[in-house]
């Protein structure tokens, strides 16, 4: 569904993406990992069209996304920071997004699951960070998009909601969705992601499922395996961050 070929992007002298080739075709949850500054966010933003690549191509459902926007109708995106215009209510936010996507969101189930009923008519500026993140989740999952991109989905969530989020992700996976995930919570990755893409210095350092990664670094847990990767590449990683 998403094909990325030879993607390059630099900000000034800083080469953030150095020839990325990636395909996301099978349904399932893929974690995009890497140290700070490794290009995770840039990669995701390139797929969403927020960052414009220097060279290379990104195809979505077979078509180049360059100068296009309609394809984003098929992507649910959860931005890292859940901040919305302060004087509006969640219902108005959903209304706008529904208008833009030309779809009616299916939210009732999600509202119940995240216990948001009493907040729907409160001004967004008055909601707590956790509640705002739940609203954020609602907009990312509520439109039944075939691709869902989650940037730090657990930020600010209470444990109960994290459990609910995990359940939700499983369900969506089961319904055939492609879910891309970046997070710093390794345990979350360990629990949720079958496949990982490990970015380093703008290259794909590793791609494969969890077992392959663990085998490669001869570890039983993800955390030490990742630490091994980072240690092995300490110098450049630091130089970047």
């Amino acid at each position, binding site marked *: 569904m998403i094909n990325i070929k030879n993607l390059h992007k630099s900000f000034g002298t800083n080469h953030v993406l150095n020839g990325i080739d990636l395909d996301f075709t099978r349904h399932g949850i893929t974690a995009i990992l890497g140290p700070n500054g490794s290009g995770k966010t840039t990669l995701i933003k390139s797929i969403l069209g927020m*960052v414009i690549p220097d060279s290379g191509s990104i195809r979505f459902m077979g078509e180049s996304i360059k100068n296009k926007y309609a394809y*984003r109708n098929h992507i649910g*995106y959860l931005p890292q920071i859940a901040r919305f215009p302060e004087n509006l209510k969640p219902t108005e936010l959903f209304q706008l997004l529904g208008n833009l996507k030309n779809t009616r969101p299916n939210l009732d189930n999600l509202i119940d699951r995240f216990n948001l009923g009493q907040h729907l008519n409160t001004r967004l500026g008055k909601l707590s960070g956790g509640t705002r993140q739940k609203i954020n989740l609602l907009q990312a999952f509520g439109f039944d998009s075939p691709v869902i991109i989650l940037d730090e989905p657990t930020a600010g969530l209470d444990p109960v909601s994290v459990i609910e989020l995990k359940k939700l992700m499983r369900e969506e996976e089961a319904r055939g969705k492609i879910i891309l995930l970046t997070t710093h919570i390794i345990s979350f990755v360990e629990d949720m992601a079958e496949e990982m893409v490990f970015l380093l210095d703008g290259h794909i350092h590793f791609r494969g499922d969890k077992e392959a990664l663990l085998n490669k670094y001869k570890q039983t847990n993800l955390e030490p395996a990742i630490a091994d990767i980072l240690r092995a590449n300490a110098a450049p990683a630091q130089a970047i961050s």
Partner: protein
Amino acid sequence: MYKIFRFYFSDLIRSRWTILYTLFYLLLTTGLLLLSPNISKVIISLMNVILFLVPLVASMLGILYYYNTRDFIELLLAQPLNRQNIFLGQYFSISASLGISLLAGIGIPFLFYGILSSPEIFNYLTLLVTGLFLNFIFAAIAFLLALKNENKIRAFGSTIILWLFFAVIYDGIILLLLSFFRDYPLEKFTLGASLLNPIDLSRIMILLQLDIAALMGFTGAVFSKFFGSGFGIAISLSSLALWILIPLWRINRISLKKDF
């Protein structure tokens, strides 16, 4: 664009800032109308406030709003819509809401005063129109600067400097040049220089109403052509319009290329 506009607009119109800004103008105008013996003096006082404050507030609140909604812009960018629509929609919503504050704050007291049947109606309308123009111009400039600078402080700094430059320093430089080169024919220069500064332009629009008698005292042919027979108003209006269109065009260009 309209969807974005409506969305932001309904956010802004409920914002504390908008309400404060409207109240400020309401109180100021009502106060001036109550205290001052004649309406043309009120208009002159308001003119000073408008030429000074409208650009400052429009650029400050414009830039503030951009950075306040910076994170939300990322969510919008991931939606199926054209990039320009996001920024133009946002620009128009902020300038429209500020414009409505101005219109309501200055308009309502004058309506009660009975401006519609007053002979000063044209001066008053000129004041409103130039105020609105300045509002749209400086919101556009601020928005452009915000788009160009990821750094909030730098954007704020350059906006304030730009405002100070247009509001005060520019005229000081013109005056200095005029007194240094007194012996040369400077009418074209003077007129041209004034057309390049939106605040000066707005002021001249108002002068054309309030001080036409003095302006007609110019000896130069360029001046008398400019100030006579609507020509000056036409030039000033189109110049003001350019001051909105050029930043908007730049906003459009930048929004197409910018990485977020």
